[in-house]
């Protein structure tokens, strides 16, 4: 196998599909054609493949049932088309999110999702992981801004869906299926994204809260404002609660949003423009550093504080980050929390009582893979989708959870 892979893609590297797992050969093709040839080889020889970008989100996936080699997309890194006057950009999957963001910025645009550590992430990796950014309150999840994709299926064939247009309903939106499929259906090789105007002004407001009740009140008051807030984060650590709101956009819009915010958060410190951006990016990149993974809990926005109470009843969470506007709690776990799986089950039970609309629980980058199981009828359909698009089982199973 090694010789055959090297004949196609040159010298192999190695990569672990998860921390602690045995290393696998990593083929890093220089072209889409080489990537397709690797997949054709896998299909013919019955080999199992894991696609990877720069590897920053491999810990989001579970251990594969079996895998023979990994296929890296990082050399497929060029911008294919950038139309600043139409507000769209198309790039190969291996491009770094930092480079893509800079290209968009040079054209006068902001690129969503604003993911943590963009230099460690590729476009393909972000889309395959379905990773949304901290800008989600304003822009929504990443899947909403993918205009089209080109992927390689398990037999090495190329399949396109969508296009490069901001509005288009031609054919099935398969890119919505691929977004978040974590390499279980295809290798994403190219994607087109919608861009948004680069902000003229930016503010970052930061305020402390004495306790959870005060944090909840400050968050609710901020969310009730008629502002198009980019992100609203409430963080809790040993020092207590700290809330951060990011505002950006047209000069006049930001100026109009500033005063009501200051009335709601009278003690807030304000950073502006470059300082605001740097501070927001620091928060984005460092807030969730963890040794034991991040527990993500999703629920209805009105129940996010009840969900936090359920977490606090279940175990002593060292660091918590809430995005109350999108109802997402992220809990950084320490190395000592390695045996979190039983806690997750206890937590699910408590959340089922605390949240009338239900709640989802998953663990990323942890020593164990804890995933949110789909409803049974949906799980069966997902398996059929996987079998239908990858009938030979070229892409490693088991990494998405529930056998997928």
């Amino acid at each position, binding site marked *: 196998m090694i010789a055959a892979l090297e004949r196609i893609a040159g010298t192999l590297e190695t990569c672990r599909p998860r921390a602690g797992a045995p290393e696998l050969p990593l083929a890093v093709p220089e072209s889409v054609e080489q990537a397709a040839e690797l997949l054709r080889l896998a299909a013919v020889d019955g080999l199992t493949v894991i696609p990877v970008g720069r590897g920053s989100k491999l810990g989001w996936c579970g251990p594969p049932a079996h895998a023979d080699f990994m296929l890296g997309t990082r050399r497929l890194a060029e911008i294919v088309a950038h139309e600043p006057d139409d507000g769209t950009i198309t790039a190969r999957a291996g491009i770094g999110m930092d480079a893509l963001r800079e290209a968009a910025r040079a054209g006068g645009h902001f690129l969503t999702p604003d993911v943590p550590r963009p230099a460690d992430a590729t476009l393909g990796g972000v889309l395959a992981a379905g990773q949304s950014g901290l800008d989600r309150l304003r822009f929504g999840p990443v899947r909403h801004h993918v205009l089209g994709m080109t992927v390689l299926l398990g037999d090495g064939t190329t399949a396109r869906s969508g296009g490069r*247009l901001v509005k288009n309903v031609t054919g099935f*939106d*398969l890119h919505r299926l691929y977004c978040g499929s974590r390499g279980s259906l295809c290798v994403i090789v190219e994607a087109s994204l919608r861009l948004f105007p680069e902000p003229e002004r930016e503010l970052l407001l930061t305020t402390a809260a004495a306790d959870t009740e005060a944090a909840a009140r400050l968050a609710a008051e901020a969310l009730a404002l008629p502002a198009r807030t980019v992100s609203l984060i409430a963080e809790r650590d040993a020092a207590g609660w700290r809330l951060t709101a990011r505002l950006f956009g047209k000069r006049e819009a930001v100026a109009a949003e500033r005063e009501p915010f200051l009335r709601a958060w009278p003690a807030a410190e304000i950073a502006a423009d470059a300082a605001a951006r740097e501070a927001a990016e620091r928060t984005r990149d460092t807030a969730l550093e963890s040794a034991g993974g991040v527990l993500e809990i999703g629920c209805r926005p009105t129940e996010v504080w009840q969900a936090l109470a359920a977490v606090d009843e279940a175990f002593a969470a060292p660091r918590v980050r809430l995005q109350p506007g999108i109802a997402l709690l992220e809990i950084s776990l320490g190395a000592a929390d390695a045996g979190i799986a039983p806690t997750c089950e206890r937590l699910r039970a408590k959340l089922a009582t605390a949240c009338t609309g239900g709640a*989802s629980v998953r663990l990323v980058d942890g020593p164990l893979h804890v995933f949110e199981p789909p409803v049974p009828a949906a799980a069966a359909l997902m398996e059929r989708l996987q079998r239908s698009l990858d009938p030979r089982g070229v892409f490693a199973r088991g990494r998405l959870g529930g056998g997928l």
Partner: protein
Amino acid sequence: MDRALVAELRSIVGDRGLVADRARLFPYEADGLAMLHTRPELVLLPRDTAQTARCMQVLHRAGVPVVYRGAGTGLSGGATPVAGGVLVATARMRDLLEIDAANRFARVQAGVVNVDLTRACANRELFYAPDPSSQQACTIGGNVGENSGGPHCLKHGATARHVLGLVIVTHDGEVLDLSEPRVDPAGYDLVGLFVGSEGMFGIATEVTVRLLPVPEVTETLLAIFPDLDGACDSVSEIIAARHEPSALEILDQLTIEAVEDSIFAAGYPRDARAVLLVDVEGSAPEVAATMGAILEIVNRRGALETRYARSDEERRRLWAGRKGAFGAMGRVAPDLYVSDVVVPRTRLREMVRYSTEVAAELGLKIATVFHAGDGNLHPNICYDRRDGDEVRRVLEAGRRIMTRCVEVGGALTGEHGVGLEKLEGMERLFGEDDLRAMCRTRDAWDPERRLNPGKLIPTHACLETRQALAARPVAAAERRP
């Protein structure tokens, strides 16, 4: 249709839920693409998910093709019945199930009319953003099937961005309850994939949608132009200058005349060659700044006159004219072929000119009204379906416009769907492998290909499909070459 089968279905939906006699079937023969029509064997009007599921189980056992229909306002033949098949319509599924203002979502039955949802939310200062021109009649379920748009989707996005959950009845009558909004899907994004699947993946019976807060301020501007070029160039420049209006719509002179002669009369100047209708939403200072910049662009691009709506009533009237434009065309000719193509927003002028030239060359009357800000063109061709030669020329014009759109980097449809009308164009835009991936995806949802057969994917384009068709029984519509 087999009598025992009809009796079994009647026992599920009752007499009011079943249409079988010839005269009452007539209105269901076509959707908004009236030139294509087929009489269904039977129309079922289930009341809820449970009835739909039981009907689908019976139809699955009997191997009967099923076409899903909302209000039948679609314009691509997506709801055209299939010979020998059953139409499942959502006309009796009209309950607003839940409005959760605090969490900003609503759950509705699929047959709820689009505008009724926004009306129901109005006293909570919320609204449902997708606003197709047919919103007085079209249903939320139909909008899901087509991933419908509307003028204000320029800012807010089409239906897919607003659907948070679905209850789907599958091809064999299983109920897939994905109605609870989730931050991210558990597993694959089935809801996102389903939206825009044109009735080929299942029957949506309930929809959970996102509601948005009513904007603090909305300003509406009408800019009057001596030609279409100036209006198109204004839009391209507004987009290129990174402004974010919530709607940018253009109407040409023939459309203006038709609107002003109709009950939708909006006060558009009859002698204008084109008008550009602009909405900007946000805080008062932001709206003022954006409108100021747009005003400067339209004046530089040759606007003869600009008018702001001075009251909510005036704004409503201006928009009623735009949304009533298709209906008003009935004054120009008995039938209207509503084309729907999309191009990069830098190519608007070129495509509008080309459409006009094609119509002139083929001796057709064309009226252009479109979502210019999204690059979504509607070159509407007025014709008389009783004139066979004119129908031929209309279809030829539609084909040429579609082909040119693809050549300039555009696509076949921005919001009406592929349906039957644009089937042929799919092979122009997509390759065999692209279409095969779509076939395979559909097979996972509906392995017998009984749901809306013959639509969206040209089956002869897919070798794998041809082989599969030879190997197993499929719906009648797909056996045809």
